[in-house]
């Protein structure tokens, strides 16, 4: 395995800037890795055939003395929820199979303008509905730590790509934990920025009041560098925050937790969490305390209603957002036998093009919004949203950041929860409150659960617009843990080279 693919994005960027390595070499190394292991991992739905061309262009610009951004020439994987020119964008759905959008999503435009090299599009649960990527219409992604297990979801493809060294960085989107929970189960880093911090323009909407695009990486500094590239006001997104942002990378470089007040949400530190998840969580807190942080217990009594509110608000917004898949403007069209009216064509198309989870949530959302039920369901859920915000506000009166385990368990086996939607929904218990309140969150590796040897993440949450606090505490914890472990957590991940070998023997490469 090439050493280039094991570098952090920051280290690779330094080698690119010094001229030690070219972007073409770095990109080729990652394309080789994808060819070798993606048959087993299935993180990618599409590999960009223009990647080397983009890399060569950056190399030319650098050689010509052009001033380039800090991540110029670094390859990046892009979650398929983001629309891209020149690459199909399906959001994991059959209904958009083969669709090549006529424009770039704003975060994609920004990474291209930063000179970064898109490697391809990553797998996800269909329209980001799920916690395991098993709801992708194109088959699941496999967790690089154990190929029989889920990589999290919905952004399992982005997290697995980064964990399997197929890309140093990726873009994700997080509606109820789709960046943070995959980071937790794959030993990687993922941030959901403050709602409105990153433009949603060109992100195929799941639930518009909850969705947020963010960075996926192996180190906290890399996430911060990518966050700095994609954040900022965008007139194309009416919910985009107009204020400027401080540098997240600076927050990591100056990380210091002395005097930092960290609140532990007691409702999310319970028996409902796997013992090894809680153990690593508490060890992380002890380490932070030993380095000057003050650990305080805080209550958030309304968090227990967050999942219920989420599974009313999300389907309601999704049922409305997904109405655009009408067989007229883009994507699939299925004409019933013998023809039909435009409505019949629409219904046949949506029946054939949507998977079971998408149908389930559209029907649920249609019900929650229907006459006579609106106040009881959607209206009540919006009130819970206020209560969750109030819990955050009173907690942040007392502490600077909150800490929780990112998810209740380590990666479960593929298929284990597929037939039990309610059990699947419980994966998001710790991540959903942030989306309801619009506050930012990060998941950082906390170690491996002793009972199964699988990765565990710790989640930090900060008040809205205080994303830099996450990078401060996340950067500090990572530094302390990597010292303790004697290297990054992913150096303990199984070697996928046996799969490389098998793929070569079978003639896949």
């Amino acid at each position, binding site marked *: 395995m090439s050493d280039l693919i094991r570098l952090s994005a920051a280290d690779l960027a330094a080698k690119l800037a010094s001229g030690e390595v070219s972007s073409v070499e770095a990109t080729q190394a990652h394309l080789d890795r994808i060819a070798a292991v993606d048959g087993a991992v299935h993180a990618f739905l599409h590999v960009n055939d223009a990647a080397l061309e983009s890399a060569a262009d950056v190399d030319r610009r650098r050689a010509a003395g052009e001033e380039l951004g800090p991540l110029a020439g670094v390859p990046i994987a892009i979650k398929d929820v983001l629309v891209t020119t020149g690459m199909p964008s399906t959001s994991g759905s059959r209904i958009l199979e083969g669709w*090549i959008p006529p424009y770039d999503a704003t975060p994609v435009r920004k990474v291209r303008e930063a000179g970064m090299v898109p490697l391809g599009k990553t797998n996800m649960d269909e329209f980001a509905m799920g916690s395991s990527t098993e709801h992708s219409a194109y088959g699941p992604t496999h967790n690089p730590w154990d190929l029989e297990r889920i990589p999290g979801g919905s952004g399992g493809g982005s997290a697995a790509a980064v964990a399997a060294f197929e890309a140093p960085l990726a873009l994700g989107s997080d509606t109820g934990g789709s960046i943070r929970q995959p980071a937790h189960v794959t030993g990687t880093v993922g941030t959901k920025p403050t709602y*409105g911090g990153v433009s949603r323009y060109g992100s195929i909407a799941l639930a518009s009041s909850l969705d947020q695009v963010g960075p996926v990486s192996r180190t906290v500094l890399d996430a911060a560098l990518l966050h700095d590239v994609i954040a900022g006001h965008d007139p194309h997104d009416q919910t985009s925050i107009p204020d400027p942002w401080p540098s997240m990378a600076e927050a990591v470089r100056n990380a210091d937790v002395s005097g930092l007040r960290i609140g532990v949400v007691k409702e999310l530190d319970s028996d409902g969490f796997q013992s090894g998840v809680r153990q690593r969580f508490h060890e992380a807190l002890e380490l932070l305390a030993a380095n000057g942080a003050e650990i305080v217990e805080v209550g958030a009594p309304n968090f227990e209603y967050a999942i219920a509110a989420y599974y009313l608000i999300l389907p309601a917004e999704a049922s409305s957002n997904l109405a655009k898949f009408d067989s007229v403007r883009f994507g699939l069209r299925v004409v019933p036998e013998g023809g039909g*009216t435009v409505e019949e064509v629409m219904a046949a198309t949506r029946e054939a093009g949507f998977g079971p989870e998408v149908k389930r949530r559209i029907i649920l959302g249609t019900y929650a919004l229907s006459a006579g039920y609106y106040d009881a369901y959607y209206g009540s859920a919006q009130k819970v949203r206020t209560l969750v915000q109030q819990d955050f506000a009173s907690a942040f009166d007392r502490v600077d950041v909150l800490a929780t385990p990112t998810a209740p368990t380590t990666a479960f086996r593929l298929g284990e929860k597929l037939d039990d939607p309610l059990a699947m929904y419980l994966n998001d218990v710790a991540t959903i409150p942030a989306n309801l309140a619009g506050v930012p969150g990060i998941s950082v590796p906390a170690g491996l659960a002793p009972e199964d040897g699988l990765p565990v993440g710790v989640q930090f949450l900060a008040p809205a617009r205080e994303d830099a606090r996450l990078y401060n505490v996340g950067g500090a914890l990572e530094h302390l843990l990597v010292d303790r472990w004697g290297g990054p957590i992913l150096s303990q991940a199984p070697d996928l080279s046996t799969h490389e070998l098998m793929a070569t023997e079978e003639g896949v490469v």
Partner: protein
Amino acid sequence: MSEISAEQVAHLANLARIALTEEEIEHLTTELGQIMQAVEQVSEVATSDVAATSHPIPLHNPLREDVPSDVLTVDQVLSGAPEHDGTRFVVSAILGEEQ
């Protein structure tokens, strides 16, 4: 409140324009009942004195100058359509024979 019938699911599927099969309707009827029962607990705390939140970060009517911005061309807009005539999307009949 959470009693959901197969007829209701069929009606919802019609509203949502999804031609669900009988089998799917049957399956979804059971599942929706279970899910609604679980999410109904929001009503325990959503009392009349609590205001509703529709948007997490308060922003007020972002406006811009009324001038054309960078919009897509007609060709770009039509590029992904299942059927078009070069200037417009083509769809099948709006009304059926009985309408």
